[in-house]
Every structure is written in structure tokens, then in C-alpha cells.
């Protein structure tokens, strides 16, 4: 029995000991005998014809083992990087899908596009040799903004992609929306930009590849959120390596946030190169290299219109968005601004008609893909901003207009007009809780206090819903997914009753080693210390789709729960023989199998022992061993949601926005470990605050240079940017996941940008300011104040 720690408890994390003592095992920590170093040579131009590469000087440089280019890739007949999601326009015409070669061929399409891989004995030698490459570029004009990219005469990235439009995608009933707009008492309009972000997990990406000629097996250690998917995409579709000859290991990964969710060219090149040169090769990105090669996030330009009746009820919502894909289609690129964006435009409201058009556009920038929230923060931002605009224009209180349109708790399950059906939720409950927790009643006093210091104080609301637990495979398949999105778990009970779980999700900070162990401890009644969670290694774990989209607990946890149920079911069979009772009479509770109505029991350890020492065992009907596996494919997404309230103070002298209070009340379903959930919410919120106030990836139009190319130029939130946040949960249970869980990893990021910007606009509303684009930097606010129609002075 021992120390059972179950659902709802908050044990300290199992993974912390190694991280706190410097004994984590990240890819860059790994050393292998005879390891060589690899360096990628990247395009310094946003857009250029690649006329040729002279490698001779580099090859003669000390320590150099090989220099590989796109020509070598072509000569070896290798595939290009696959896109995992194919979308179509309204007529069913598939998206334009140009190849994404692992080393550039013919043209480079963004600063950072890989043109060569230099392998040498040491990183210093590889870097020195990389400097000696002579690369003949014919530089072309770059286009980096979506508005510019679709204009006539814009530079064209691909010959067969007219106007740089990958897909003209739409969702919803445009006719119904048109009709509703004609009857509207008021139409609110808003143009906005959702700024491009750089993910910045603190561990830069890295990879090590080894080839063993004796067994013809490859091993790739990589900073990945989904090693099995890398094995599948890279092995089957890029390098033609049989799955059983390829091991992909993602050990401790220092943060992901989506950035490490994709199959990257670096992984394919280094694995291919390891066999070509018969050496183990290591590559570790610098932070600045990551800035021009890690997939970026967001980057939308949007026009939105909300139609309302005279009482402020939403009649229809229309959204036209241009979404930046960057220079190529990344693994999930086209899915993010379409399927993960449009269906969330209903938010927590009863808007009866919604239409969304998204033009997915190529530009000379780093490819854009899923990043922390992925599509859902963008949808929430548009909706929660325009609700504030409508409220202001119609003279309705911002909380009141939300209340008038919210889906009531009793209306769930709720079918939206844009594909999704929310199973459960209580947006009003979250709002009510947040109003109290944020002391909204006392805001007037705080605002007056700010005014007396010459500062403007503002309050901002964001009531939101998201779709998590990616995803029901059938649903995803209808939307263009080229893979399934289930999860798997194996529960291996050892002869002594300890348990090893092999699970297909990945843990890169979310505390899965702890949370999953709690589930097993509770369900099997075994000690928390006696449960180990194994992940991130295709040789140890049967299969899995990895960790992203707040799916690990929702989908992976469900697979684990199912596998655990199977262990109990088999344990009952074993117990029925040992206890000489009918199987239906065997009960399992608190780690003990017993015969109903008697005091005859066997402990979990005794059953485990008997399974592996089957002396008294009906081998003709029962196999020895106690290990069970389950795959789980969800029936629906889960829909976490909540209400976030931000309070800011703006200094009109400098334009500085200070976040002074932040309150969040979130519905994440069942909470397995409240300590971990709270930590996840904190992190997500600060990411959203970062987008709203500080972070921005800026490109130079024309040259395609990334101007915010390092941590010196890209403002990351730091400890002194934040106040203490008030974060609580107000949960309804998910009706279709085994434990009622909904997921929490991205909640904070989805709710917070709109809350912060709504607060900034509220603070400046008396000056006639109706919108502020993100990030609301001091410079941007100061300029707004200089241009404001009213004098800059405290009220």
C-alpha cells in the first residue's frame, strides 16, 4: 500500500530533484564517444536565387569532415518536410503546397533558411569552416507583411502560388450573416493586428544523431515534444528509414510551447548526415539562431464586424483575416489560423451566425506554426476586443453586454454555428467569481488614486473559451488532418507491485511525472513513490502523439486511466482463482482485491506476484504477467474557459503601461494537482501579458531582415514586469473524458492578451482612444497620447 497520493492532492513534483540539483538530462548535456559537431549555414537574405555554393575552401579547413548542401539532398533522392494538415477552400480546392526542402534548393525564402550543413571535429572548426563557404545569391526583393504580400506586383515566393495565397479558407454561413447585418441596430467594426511572436523556450533546440552500421539503426536525440511523430514523419516521409530502424529520443526538454512540436529540417539533415559520414554528430542552436529558425507564432491582420440588436444582443459576427505562414508550410502551419481559429469565434456567446474568411499567405519570414494557444488566443483577442468596442459605442457596460450574450450554464451542451459543440461550462460563474476576486467594486477608488498621481488606470475583461485535448481523430480527419490524434499508455506492473507507465505524451515542464503518478496511485492503490512515468523514447514507449494543445492529461491521461482499468480487470481474474470465488464477486478497493461479503482478500502486490510466479494459475485461460495497454481517441474536444480581469496604470509622461492587478477564474474541469495547475495558469498568463505589452517579432519589409533577432531586441517578460496574480478555478466537469478533466496548459495565454489590451484601452478611453495594437509598448502609447484629440492630462 504505502503512500497513496490521489486526485486533488498536491504532492511535490517527482521531477524536481534532478532539475534542482543540476542533474537534468537535456540533449545538449549528452556526450557520445567520437562525437563530431555540426553547424548550419543559413541564408542572410530574405529572398534570393541560390546560384551555387563553393564548398572547396571549407572542405580544406582544419577538422572538417563534410559539407552538405541541397544538391546532396537532391542527389540522394530525399523527400521534403511534410505538412501534417491539408486544408481546402470553400469549393474544395486544396491549399497550394510547395515543397519544403530540408536544405534549400534553387531559392531561399527567409533569413535563416538552411543552405548547408558543415560537419567538423569541433564546433569551433565547423564554425570557422562555415565562414569559408562562398555562396552565390541573386538577391530578390522580400515581402514580409501579409497586406503587402497579396498586393498586385508583390514579390512572388513560388511560381505556382499566385498572389502568395496558399489557401482562401472560409467557415460559417455567410448568407445568414449578411441577413443579420441588414437587420442590425448597430454594427461595431475593428481592424487589428495580432503580432508575431517568437517562442523562446529557455532551452534552445538541439539534436544528436548516431548511426550504427552493425545493426543498421539510427538514433536521434532531439528537443522534441513528440518523438514518435518525428520518427514517423522523418523515417517514413523524408529519409526512408524503416520505423524499426529508427529510435527517436527526447529526454528532458527545457520548455516547448509548441516551438518544439514540429518536424524540423535540422533533425532530418543531421540524421541523414550521420550515416553519410559514419559519425555521431551534435548540433546545438544558439538563441539567435533559434530566432531565425524556430517556428514563429500568431501574425494576423484582421477586419472584424459585430452586428447587434438595439438591446446589445449579438446577431452576427464576421471576421476577415490574413494569416502569415512564412516562407514554407510547417508541420501544422495551415491548421492554426483556420481550424483552430474559426471554430473559436463563437466564444462564450450565443451569437447565432458567424462567418470567417482566412487568407493563408506566404511571405519571406520564418514559417509560422502552433505556438502556446495556437489560433485560440487570436480568436479570443478579436472577439473580446470587438465586444468592448460594441459596448463602448452602444453605451452598455462591458460586463453587462457580456452577461446579455453569454451561454447560460443550463444551455450546455451548446452547439455553436461554427462546427464545435461545447459539452460543459459556466462562463457566468467564472465572471461572477472574477468580479469579486478582482474587487471591481473598488476600482473607482483605485482609479481616483491613480489620477491624483497623474496616472490613468484601466480595467479590462476577457471571457473566453478554448478547444483543448487535441483531438478526436475522426473530426480532425474531416478538417484535413493527415494523422490521428489519439494517445496511448502502457501500465507495467512489476512482480513486486511497483508500476512503470509508458506513455506517448511528453513532459517538458508540465509535471506529468507527478500528475500521472497520482492517477495510478489513486486507481491502483499503490504508493506514489512506486510509480514511474516513462516518455520521450520510441524504443521504450509503444507509440504516442506527444504533448501540445493541452492534450496530455485529457487524451493521454484518459489512455492511462483505461489501461489502469484493464490492469484491475485482469487482477480480478487472477484474484478470483487465488481466492476461489467467482470473478463477478471480486471487488477492488484501496489496493486490495476481496471477495464481496467476506474477509478474504489479496493485496495488489500479492496479485502482481502471482501473475509473474504462476504456480497456482489456470494457464489455459489466463496469461501470466500483469501489463496492459490502451489507446484512447477522444469523442470531442474539451472546452476550458474562464474570465480574466487585468488592471493597468498608464503613465502619460512616458507611455509606460504597468500591470498592477491580474485576476483569473478558470474552468479547467477536474483538477488532479492544484499546485501544478496553478503553475500552468501563471505561466500562460505571463505569456499573454508578454504579447500584449512587450513581445514583437519585427521584420524589415524589402530586405526581409529580422530586426528583433536576439534577446537584446525582443522584450521577454521578466519577474519585475508582473504583480502577484490571483488565480483560482471554477470548474465544471467535462462530460466525456474519464476523469472530467479539460486541460490547463494554454488557458492563461488564451485569456490574457485581450484582458490586458482592454484594460489599456479603458485607461485611455477618455482621450478618445478606441484601440491599441499589441504590444502596447511605451513608444506606441506615447505616440497615441501625442496624437490624441484631447490634452494629455489626468482627469
Amino acid at each position: 500500500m504505502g503512500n497513496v497520493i490521489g486526485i486533488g492532492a498536491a504532492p511535490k513534483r517527482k521531477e524536481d530533484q534532478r532539475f534542482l540539483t543540476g542533474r537534468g538530462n537535456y540533449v545538449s548535456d549528452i556526450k557520445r564517444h567520437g562525437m563530431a559537431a555540426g553547424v548550419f549555414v543559413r541564408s542572410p537574405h530574405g529572398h534570393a536565387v541560390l546560384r551555387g555554393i563553393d564548398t572547396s575552401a571549407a572542405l580544406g579547413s582544419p577538422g572538417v569532415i563534410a559539407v552538405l548542401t541541397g544538391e546532396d539532398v537532391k542527389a540522394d533522392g530525399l523527400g521534403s518536410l511534410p505538412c501534417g494538415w491539408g486544408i481546402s477552400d470553400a469549393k474544395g480546392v486544396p491549399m497550394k503546397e510547395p515543397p519544403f526542402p530540408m536544405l534549400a534548393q534553387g531559392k531561399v525564402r527567409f533569413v535563416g533558411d538552411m543552405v548547408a550543413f558543415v560537419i567538423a571535429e569541433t564546433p569551433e572548426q565547423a564554425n570557422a569552416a562555415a565562414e569559408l563557404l562562398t555562396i552565390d545569391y541573386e538577391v530578390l526583393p522580400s515581402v514580409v507583411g501579409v497586406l503587402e504580400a497579396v498586393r498586385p506586383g508583390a514579390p512572388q515566393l513560388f511560381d505556382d502560388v499566385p498572389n502568395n495565397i496558399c489557401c482562401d479558407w472560409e467557415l460559417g454561413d455567410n448568407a445568414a450573416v449578411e441577413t443579420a447585418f441588414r437587420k442590425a441596430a448597430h454594427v461595431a467594426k475593428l481592424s487589428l493586428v495580432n503580432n508575431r511572436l517568437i517562442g523562446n523556450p529557455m532551452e534552445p533546440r538541439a539534436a544528436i544523431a548516431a548511426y550504427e552500421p552493425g545493426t543498421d539503426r539510427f538514433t536521434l536525440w532531439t528537443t522534441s515534444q513528440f518523438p514518435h511523430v518525428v520518427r514517423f514523419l522523418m523515417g517514413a516521409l523524408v529519409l526512408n528509414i524503416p520505423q524499426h530502424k529508427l529510435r527517436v529520443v527526447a529526454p528532458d526538454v527545457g520548455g516547448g510551447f509548441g516551438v518544439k512540436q514540429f518536424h524540423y529540417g535540422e533533425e532530418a539533415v543531421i540524421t541523414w548526415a550521420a550515416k553519410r559520414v559514419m559519425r555521431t554528430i551534435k548540433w546545438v542552436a544558439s538563441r539567435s539562431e533559434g530566432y531565425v529558425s524556430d517556428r514563429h507564432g500568431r501574425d494576423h491582420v484582421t477586419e472584424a464586424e459585430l452586428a447587434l440588436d438595439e438591446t446589445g444582443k449579438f446577431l452576427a459576427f464576421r471576421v476577415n483575416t490574413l494569416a502569415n505562414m512564412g516562407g514554407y508550410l510547417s508541420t501544422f502551419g495551415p491548421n492554426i489560423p483556420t481550424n483552430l481559429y474559426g471554430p473559436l469565434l463563437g466564444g462564450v456567446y450565443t451569437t447565432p451566425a458567424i462567418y470567417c474568411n482566412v487568407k493563408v499567405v506566404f511571405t519571406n519570414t520564418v514559417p509560422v506554426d502552433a505556438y502556446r494557444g495556437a489560433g485560440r488566443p487570436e480568436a479570443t483577442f478579436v472577439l473580446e476586443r470587438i465586444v468592448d468596442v460594441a459596448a463602448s459605442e452602444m453605451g452598455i457596460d462591458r460586463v453587462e453586454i457580456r452577461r446579455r450574450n453569454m451561454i447560460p450554464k443550463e444551455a450546455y451542451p451548446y452547439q455553436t454555428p461554427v462546427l464545435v459543440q461545447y459539452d460543459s461550462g459556466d462562463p457566468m460563474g467564472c465572471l461572477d467569481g472574477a468580479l469579486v476576486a478582482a474587487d471591481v467594486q473598488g476600482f473607482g477608488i483605485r482609479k481616483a488614486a491613480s489620477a491624483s498621481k497623474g496616472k490613468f488606470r484601466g480595467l479590462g475583461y476577457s471571457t473566453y473559451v478554448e478547444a483543448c485535448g487535441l483531438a478526436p481523430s475522426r473530426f480532425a480527419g474531416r478538417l484535413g488532418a493527415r494523422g490521428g490524434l489519439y494517445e496511448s499508455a502502457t501500465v507495467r506492473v512489476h512482480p513486486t507491485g511497483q508500476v512503470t507507465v509508458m506513455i506517448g505524451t511528453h513532459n517538458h515542464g508540465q509535471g506529468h511525472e507527478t500528475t500521472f503518478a497520482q492517477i495510478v496511485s489513486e486507481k491502483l492503490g499503490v504508493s506514489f513513490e512506486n510509480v514511474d512515468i516513462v516518455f520521450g523514447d520510441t524504443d521504450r514507449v509503444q507509440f504516442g502523439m506527444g504533448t501540445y494543445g493541452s492534450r496530455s492529461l485529457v487524451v493521454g491521461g484518459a489512455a492511462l486511466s483505461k489501461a489502469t482499468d484493464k490492469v484491475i480487470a485482469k487482477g480480478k481474474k487472477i484474484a478470483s482463482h487465488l481466492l476461489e470465488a467467482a470473478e463477478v464477486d471480486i471487488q477492488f478497493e484501496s489496493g486490495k482485491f476481496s471477495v464481496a461479503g467476506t474477509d478474504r482478500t489479496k493485496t495488489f502486490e500479492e496479485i502482481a506476484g502471482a501473475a509473474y510466479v504462476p504456480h497456482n494459475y489456470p494457464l489455459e485461460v489466463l496469461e501470466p504477467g500483469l501489463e496492459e495497454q490502451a489507446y484512447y481517441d477522444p469523442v470531442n474536444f474539451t472546452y476550458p474557459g474562464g474570465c480574466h480581469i487585468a488592471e493597468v496604470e498608464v503613465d502619460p509622461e512616458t507611455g509606460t503601461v504597468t500591470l498592477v492587478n491580474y485576476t483569473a477564474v478558470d474552468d479547467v474541469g477536474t483538477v488532479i494537482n492544484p499546485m501544478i495547475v496553478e503553475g500552468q495558469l501563471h505561466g500562460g498568463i505571463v505569456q499573454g501579458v508578454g504579447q500584449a505589452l512587450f513581445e514583437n517579432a519585427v521584420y524589415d519589409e524589402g530586405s526581409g531582415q529580422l530586426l528583433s533577432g536576439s534577446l537584446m531586441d525582443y522584450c521577454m517578460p521578466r519577474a519585475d514586469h508582473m504583480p502577484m496574480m490571483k488565480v483560482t478555478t471554477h470548474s465544471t466537469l467535462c462530460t466525456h473524458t474519464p476523469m472530467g478533466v479539460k486541460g490547463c496548459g494554454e488557458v492563461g495565454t488564451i485569456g490574457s492578451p485581450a484582458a490586458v489590451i482592454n484594460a489599456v484601452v479603458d485607461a485611455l478611453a477618455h482621450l478618445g482612444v478606441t484601440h491599441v495594437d499589441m504590444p502596447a509598448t511605451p513608444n506606441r502609447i506615447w505616440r497615441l497620447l501625442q496624437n490624441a484629440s484631447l490634452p494629455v492630462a489626468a482627469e
Partner: protein
Amino acid sequence: MTVQISFTLNGRPTNVDVEPATLVAELLREQLNLTGTHIGCDTSQCGACVVHLDGLPVKSCTLLAPALDGATLLTIEGLQGAPGSNQMHPMQEAFREHHGLQCGFCTPGMLMTAIALAAEKPDLTEADVRQGLEGNICRCTGYQNIVVSVMAGAAAMHAAEGE
């Protein structure tokens, strides 16, 4: 060409030959196999590489190895109690207790900065801690639990000193 340097590393005398251009972070990780000190950026912004040089916190990615000659260096690996024991420093305990870490990559640098902050000022306020962590970036936690951990760790450190 290499130079020989001698310094005290985590309480032990250490002699190594290094290329003069080697950074301390590289020396620790590549030559001395102490991989607890992490490298998260190339512009001295992130703080994942903070170690203590003669008792003061420094970013080991901006310090050349020859500067160590004659110095005393403490890294995350030197923080525990008795060698081989699993006993942790009060600041490490506080981070575990208050969930002051998630992916763990920034954690060694955070701990080294936090211990130096606590050593410098006995009564750390929340504002002191937030300001003191300005050179350490965490992308996971949102800092709140780190701040709570540092304040608790500092209190535990000073309580232990008072005993």
C-alpha cells in the same frame, strides 16, 4: 595554445588546461562535465548560466576561463550538503516546496541568483526579489512561484544561520 589555470571548484582544487578564448560556461559543461550550468542565450540576457565567482553571482557565458585562475567557483552541483547525499540547500528545498520550477532549464541559474540575493540582504521584499531576478528569464512559470520560493528560501537560509 592552451593556458593552465588553477581554481577551487565546488570546494575542490582544480587544475585545467584551457584555450584562452574558452568561456567559463563552456569549460564547465564541455571539459569538466558539469552540465548543470545551462546556456540559454548568446547575449547574456537569460541567466541560465549564473554561477558564483568568489561568492558573487556572475553569468558564466560572459567570463573567460583564464579569469578563474586563483578564484573560487561555486556551481549548482556544489550546492548540496554532504557529497553523495540527496540533501538539498534551503533554497533548493524552497523551490521544490513552492513549485518554483517547471521545465527546469532556467532553474540552476535562478537558484544561484536567488542564493546570492538572499545572502546579500537579510529581509528581502517581493520588490527586491523581482528586481533581483531581472537578469534571469523563465518562460514557464510566470515567475510568481519563483518569487515566493526565493522569499521562503531566503528566510530558511537566515533561520539556519541564526541557529
